[in-house]
């Protein structure tokens, strides 16, 4: 078969389909799928905001009546949570923006920039996601309980949690983000 015969075969292939659903039903399903995505995103954002407010309210008594070191700890935790929320919300807004109507080369560049941004975010997770709230929580505990066995036990627990969070983030980098960037770079390379 030569290329012209191939073109003929391609053009003459007939694709008909069974009458599974009507066009109106298909349209409804597509709309439902599309709005389900938007609702899921909105629900998640609302859930996170409510969680943040609950955490702030829980810390309020310590902020008002606690020892000065604990108050300082609460402030550190609250600022850290605000920074984390802001960084994650910004990253998600960028991640969830859709540009499928652009040319492939434009889209690939945007996708690569998004993934690179996410990689940087996770690579620096220790400095903005792990250390600040951990230090804040430690100050709260030291302020309330002093330097004793409880504080020592809590420190070990907090360190364990921090290590697990770090490990999970590195896992996402290794198994998801870096391969995805490599795939995008491969496509960009294929376009050149």
């Amino acid at each position: 078969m030569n290329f012209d015969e191939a073109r003929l075969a391609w053009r003459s292939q007939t694709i008909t389909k069974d009458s599974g659903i009507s066009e109106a039903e298909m349209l409804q399903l597509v709309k439902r799928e599309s709005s389900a995505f938007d609702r899921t995103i909105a629900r998640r954002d609302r859930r996170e905001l409510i969680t943040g407010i609950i955490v702030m309210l829980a810390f309020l008594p310590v902020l008002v009546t606690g020892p000065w070191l604990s108050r300082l700890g609460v402030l550190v935790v609250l600022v850290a949570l605000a920074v984390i929320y802001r960084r994650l919300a910004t990253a998600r807004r960028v991640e969830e923006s859709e540009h499928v109507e652009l040319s492939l080369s434009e889209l690939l560049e945007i996708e690569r920039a998004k993934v690179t941004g996410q990689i940087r975010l996770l690579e620096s997770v220790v400095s903005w996601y792990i250390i600040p709230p951990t230090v804040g929580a430690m100050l709260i505990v030291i302020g309330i309980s002093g330097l004793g066995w409880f504080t020592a036990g809590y420190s070990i627990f907090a360190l364990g949690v921090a290590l697990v969070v770090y490990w999970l983030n590195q896992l996402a980098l290794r198994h998801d983000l870096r391969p995805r960037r490599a795939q995008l770079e491969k496509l960009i390379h294929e376009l050149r």
Partner: protein
Amino acid sequence: MRVMRDPDETFLRLVRENDARLRKICRVYASDTDAEKDLYQDILVQIWRALPSFEGTSSPDTWLYRVALNTALTQKRQRTARESATLDEGNPIWRNPIPTPDESLEARQRLERLYAAIARLDDVDKAIVMMHLDERSHREIAEVLGITESYVGVKLHRIRKTMATWLAEGAA
């Protein structure tokens, strides 16, 4: 074709007129039937979501190719983001193609050989060859991919040469 007058009708007309094209794209980029169904559904959802961006500035064909190919090539990201939102696990949108009785065995085999040859190309070359087989001009292909027309020509020349060898191998 203007979109905003009646988005529902515009969407249905686009899908109706291009269904065969969308299915070919799904077949070329999906690894199996399930992936084909998922991709088809993703493309339809993306066409619907991107509809407001279609202002009649480019031809419907070019716009549709962009949305479909971009979805196919970045599908993983979209499915990950959409996983929890998926409602129709059975893919009711997908309707199974029915083999047409007038298609001869030889024609089907020829088509299988062609798909097998396309499958050996890299992802960008698959897009180029599909549009070329659909008789899109170099200019349209360049618009969809965001490369120059002359580069489309260079790439096509190379692809045609490679595929001719593979198609001849398949026939042997």
